[in-house]
């Protein structure tokens, strides 16, 4: 399906000169010419009067990032974010595709809402917006959404994210039904009967602060259940935002058994701990909650050793007034799109190519987008690219984010690595760190 954005380019296209290409094939010093939304050629490209030349010396040219977990809030919560503002944030973060989570209002559980989200994304033209669908109608956990009908309009990933599917029998049937259609169910792992009223990770810190706790076990029980359902049904499951050491260990064991289980982790779960809640600032409230340092290290290890397949943002905008409520009444969630690469680069001891893989071709495969995103940077491929300054140090100013909301928890975290340019179907949607539309 074509989602090409109209572009006005010189006949010789755009040449990215002087950079280092990093993609699934490896790392090499080549120039890249983009023409009509595709990569026309790579190599040592001589000066050419009819091309726009962008000097990318010292920068990395990579396939654009793919976010498996973005809350764009439209329809229904446009005071927090719109598909346009969220897409702009994505482009600035180096993303050329995002999977839009279905917990909108109305829910993305039918063709009309899914098509609305897709068309809003297309008209914003900043990033490919791929709607996911909910597993159950209205995310109510009772009745399955029409998987096949939604699949026919391009939906590949289904999730009730925001809450987990509590009913074991229903989850089994959902896997059996979706599995034979070649679809992927993604789970928000949380046994809700263990997290009633929970505000933060259950532990000594939470006990000291007098807050209701969210035990690690509430996640791990559902991770375990879903792994066993995968074993039973053979259908794939993608586990969203893993946050605990034991969850990582369970997924590692499942993969060793050869089960079709994939998992993601967020930038905040590899950089922040539950002690941040000591300020009682709802900026640090998120679901699943920030955990202990031991959990943070285990999640990092999981990303480094391949147990966890992708870094996903769980970008969750909320307007300032919502985050000025008392901690227990404030909604959970953090911004992530514009800071993900900088946080991940600063907190993971990984080769740059491995990191880009966690943010690009590996999530693209899970999202069913491997034909369009995360592609090799080679002639004939779609020109969905991020040009990265891999070692640029910066700090985030919430007032200057493209997102409509400002709820970033990273204002005092030193970030390493930033997006300089983003190309979507050959069009520079970000130039020199500024969105062009």
């Amino acid at each position: 399906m074509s989602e090409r954005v109209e572009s006005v380019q010189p006949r010789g296209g755009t040449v990215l000169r002087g950079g280092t290409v990093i993609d699934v094939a490896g790392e090499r010093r080549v120039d890249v010419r983009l023409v009509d939304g595709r990569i026309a050629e790579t190599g040592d490209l001589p000066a050419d009067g009819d091309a726009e030349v962008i000097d990318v010396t010292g920068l990395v040219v990579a396939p654009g990032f793919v976010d498996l977990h973005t809350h764009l809030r439209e329809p229904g919560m446009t005071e927090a974010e719109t598909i346009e503002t969220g897409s702009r944030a994505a482009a600035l973060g180096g993303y050329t595709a995002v999977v839009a989570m279905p917990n909108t209002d109305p829910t993305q559980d039918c063709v009309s809402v899914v098509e609305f989200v897709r068309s809003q994304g297309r008209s914003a033209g900043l990033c490919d917006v791929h709607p996911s669908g909910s597993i159950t109608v209205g995310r109510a956990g009772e009745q399955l959404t029409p998987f096949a009908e939604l699949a026919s309009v391009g939906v590949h990933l289904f999730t009730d994210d925001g809450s987990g599917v509590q009913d074991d029998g229903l989850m089994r049937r959902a896997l059996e039904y979706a599995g034979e259609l070649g679809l992927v169910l993604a789970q928000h792992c949380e046994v809700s009967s263990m997290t009633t009223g929970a505000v933060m990770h259950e532990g000594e810190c939470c006990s000291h602060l007098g807050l209701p706790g969210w035990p690690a076990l509430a996640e791990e029980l559902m991770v375990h259940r879903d792994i066993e359902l995968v074993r039973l049904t053979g259908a794939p499951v993608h586990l969203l935002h893993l946050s605990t050491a034991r969850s990582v260990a369970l997924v590692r064991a499942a993969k060793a058994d050869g089960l079709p289980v994939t998992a993601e982790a967020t930038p905040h779960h590899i950089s922040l701990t539950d002690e941040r809640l000591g300020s009682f600032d709802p900026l640090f409230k998120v679901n699943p909650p920030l955990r202990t340092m031991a959990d943070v290290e285990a999640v990092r290890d999981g990303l480094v050793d391949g147990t966890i397949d992708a870094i996903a943002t769980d970008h969750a905008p909320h307007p300032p007034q919502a985050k000025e409520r008392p901690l227990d009444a404030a909604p959970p969630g953090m911004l992530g799109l514009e800071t993900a690469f900088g946080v991940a680069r600063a907190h993971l001891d990984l080769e740059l190519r491995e990191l880009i893989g966690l943010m690009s071709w590996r999530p693209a495969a899970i999202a069913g987008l491997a034909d369009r995103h995360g592609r090799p940077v080679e002639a004939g491929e779609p020109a969905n690219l991020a040009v990265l300054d891999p070692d640029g140090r910066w700090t985030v100013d919430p007032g200057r984010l493209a997102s409509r909301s400002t709820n970033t928890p990273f204002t005092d975290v030193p970030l390493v690595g930033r997006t300089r340019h983003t190309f979507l179907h050959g069009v520079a949607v970000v130039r020199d760190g500024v969105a062009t539309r």
Partner: protein
Amino acid sequence: MMDTRRHLRGIGDLDRAALERLLDLTDHMAEVGRRANPKVPALRGRTMCNLFFEDSTRTRMSFDTAAKRLSADTMTLAVGSSSVNKGESLRDTVETLGAMGVDAFVVRHRSSGVPWRIAEWTEASVINAGDGWHQHPTQALLDLYTIRSERARRLGEDAGFEGLRVGVIGDIRHSRVARSLTEALGLLGAVVVHIGPRTLMPPTPLARSTDDLDGELEDLDVVYLLRMQNERMDAALIPSGEEYTRRFALDPQRAGRLGEHVLVMHPGPMNRGVEITVDPTTLPGAVVTTQVTNGIAARMAVLFDLLGGVETEVSA
């Protein structure tokens, strides 16, 4: 400009010296309270604003009386269960009231941490009058003062807190009183044991916890009973009120095993027949009404400590 305000949001705002200074100051304030005219001009021109997002007539009256005895002006915003209680306009409320010239906000809220948030939105000092399950520092202060003064009166000298054995009995998990008291007693070197079923014990390095009340009873210098709330039964934290009473109430048999010097305390209001089945007026060690009286002096001490500048002094 440097932020020179001080707050009493939790016991964590104090170190041992500051806590001891407040106890000494409470002693002075108790003396003021015993005068024929228990009023001093120490805080004339200062304004204290009660910001009570949760009903608490007793605590509010105690703060009001404390402020009046120090000649401070008082304002009160009592918000029952309106939208503000859900916190939508918490910041607006604080900024509006702050614009009226408030020197100290006294804050009570059902949500843990609200005094910390308010301190970020106002120029005034913030005194926590109870936040969620978290902290209630003036209650801890009045309890410590009660322990210190009653032990001095009964044992003849100020024995201090070092090694004092305090049993806090009941629903520790949901108790801001227990959190503040445990932390404050620890600062002064007392040994705290939390007594109750494991479902009501939060993990903490500050106290040992046990469900064996009868095994602990004879080793205690202070028995501190907490209020047991009915909603805990609904959440399946304990099977029934009757079972709780059987295992953890101060009943006549247990009261009879207490040493003569042992103080029996309760933050009120007491659930007779639940956490206590003996008439407290028959117990020589019961100091529950003394706690209430001392509450005014302790709150006077806190207000004076935070708002009394160099130009003010406690004098008749």
